[in-house]
Structures are given as C-alpha cells and as structure tokens.
C-alpha cells in the first residue's frame, strides 16, 4: 500500500488501468 502511495499520480493511474484491464479480461473468460 505504501509503495502504491509513493507512486506519482500518472503511475498510479497506469497501475489502476492495467489492473482493471486484466480484471475485465478475467471476467470475460468467466462470462463467455
């Protein structure tokens, strides 16, 4: 958590976006 907080705003956003992307792909695997 502290590592996440130490990141810059744009890096945090990149991390969230990649996490969401993988979460959606996982969801697509379950739903398809």
């Amino acid at each position, binding site marked *: 958590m502290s590592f996440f907080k130490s990141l810059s705003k744009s890096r945090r*956003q990149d991390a969230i976006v990649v996490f969401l992307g993988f979460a*959606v792909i996982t969801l697509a695997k379950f739903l398809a």
Partner: protein
Amino acid sequence: MSQNVISQPLEAQQSFARAVVESLPGLLLVCAVALVASFVAPKLEAYPLFKTYLSLKDFILAIIFGIIIRNTVGVPAVFQPGLRYSTIMTKTGIVIMGSSYSLAGLVSVGAQALVFIAVFLFGTALVMMWLCRKVGMSTPLAACLAAGMSVCGVSATIAIAPAVKAKNEDMAYSIAVVLMFGLLALIAFPLIGKMFNLTPEQFGAFAGVGIVNSAQVLAAGFGFSQEAGIVAGIYNIGRVVFLPFVVLMLAIMAAAQEAEQGNEVAKINKWQMIRDKFPLFVLGFLAIVCLNTAGVLSKPEVKMAKHFMEWAFLLGFASIGLTTRLSDLRAAGLNGFLFGFGVAGLKAALALAAVLIFMS
C-alpha cells in the same frame, strides 16, 4: 503507537468508501448518457441522411450528448466527482483492446503505423516550432502548441509545460485549439472517409494521424467502423509511446531558443524525462496481446472482451463530453483558432494523401 497503526488503514478505508459514494451520482449520469447514445444511434440509421452521409455512431453521440448537457442545462456539483474517471475508462478500453490482436497482427499494422506516426509526429513538432517562431510566438507557447498538435492535445501539453515554464494561458490555448479541432474532426473525418471510400485500415490510419486527442481518435475510428476503431487505437498507442521523446526534443529546442535570446535555462535530465513520461499502461496492452497470441483467450472470450472494450470507451467518451466546457475553448481566441486549425487542417490533408498513396 499501535492505535495509530490500526487507525491508518481504517481511515484509508473510510476515505475510499466516501470517494465511492461521492462518485456514484456522476457515474450513474455517465451510464445514462452512454445508454441513451447506444439506444439513439441505431434509430438514426433509419434516416438516409445519417445512414449515407452523416454517420453518428454511439461513440460520437455519447460525446455530443455530454457536451450538450454540460453546456445547456449544466451539470450540478453533486455529479462532478463521478466525472473524473474518463481517462481511466478510455485507457482501460485500450488495455482490453489487446485481446483483439495477436503479436503477428500487431507487427503487421504496428510497423507501418510507427513509420507513419514518427514522420508526422516529429515533422509536425518541428514545423510548429519553426512556424511559431516566424509569427513571433513566445517559446513556451510554441512548445505547448507543438506538443499538443503533434502528440496529444492534453497530456503532451501538460507534460511539456513545466519543462518550458509555460503559463496557464499557454496550456489553455494549446488544449483549446486541439480539442476544438478534434470535435469538428469527429463529424468531418467519417464524412471524408466515406467520400474517398477509405477502407477500415486506411480510415484508422487517417484518424490516428490526423486527430491528436486520444479519445477523439478512438471515437472517430469506432464511429467509422469497429475495424477502423481498432486500427486507430494502434496508431493512438504508437503516438503515446513517442510522447516522452517528442517532449524531450521540444524541451531541448525550447531551451536552445531561450539561451539564444539570453534567458536563463534550466538543466534537462534526459533519461529522467523519458522514464517519467513513458506511458506504462501500454505494457498492459502488450501483455494482453501476448496472452491472446499464446491462445489463452478463446474466440467467444475475445468477443466478450470486445463488448467490454466498447463499453469502456462509450463510458469514457460520455464522461469527456460531460466535462467539456465550450467556454474554456474560447482561450485560444479567433486568431488562435485560425492559426491552429490551418496547421491541423494541413496535417489532416497530408495524412489523407499519405494514406491514399501508401496504403492503397
């Protein structure tokens, strides 16, 4: 001490819960605009004007509806917190888009895209710096405009601004010109594409090079066809990958011009600038392309992922429309728009010519 350690995660949880609750009304509004756009778009296709000439797909309608709401009835303060996720939604769509590509497909589209992008991107940046100097613009404003017109209207302008000590007015001017051109391009580009009978690959390249704002590139591409949208997405990724290098080049050019004029110049740390500005989310896109190439995703799963990708874009575009204040676009003034539109129009015409010559 131990009480302090326990209370910190609790506080973090509470502030997260508060942020979620505060964002709900805005997110619901974004969903409502996206749903209306996806409902209205097929109905418009029933009319010959929209079917044959003025193709307004749900992606473009979401932006237009959002802008109309924002600039007529307005958006009350309670909705504002939920409208700040447009970039996250659009970038998530780009990461998911990785499922539409295999490595071989990406190389075949991407290799040509990288050449096109590099030529247009560095060419536009250099021409803009030269042109702005000729018309007597200040160096920081010239650098903002060159970054905005070549790489990406908003993020490149924000990236270059501190390096060239640009004022807020310089940033507002650059962002206003690029966004306004992109808004007109959303309507004009699909029309031009139909007029010249462009294939989805040609149109994707035309939009990817001719329009510079990421969301507008994707909306115009998907507004033409899904295949064109995916090609436009690849061009968009190529452009953002070049962002740190163009910003570095412009910062060095601006510093040289300032030094020539006898002004004080800050030292540029080249490696740090490239590292800080590199868009890491592109690695997420590439990771999903690799998973798809390795056969981890079946055809129905890819189809489902595409469906999610379209909704991520649709929600992002609705959110962008709801946050676009046309009054902000006045920052450039009439002369600014004429100058910016002249250069952007010329770049779009050259992009169209290049696409017709090299991709036929």
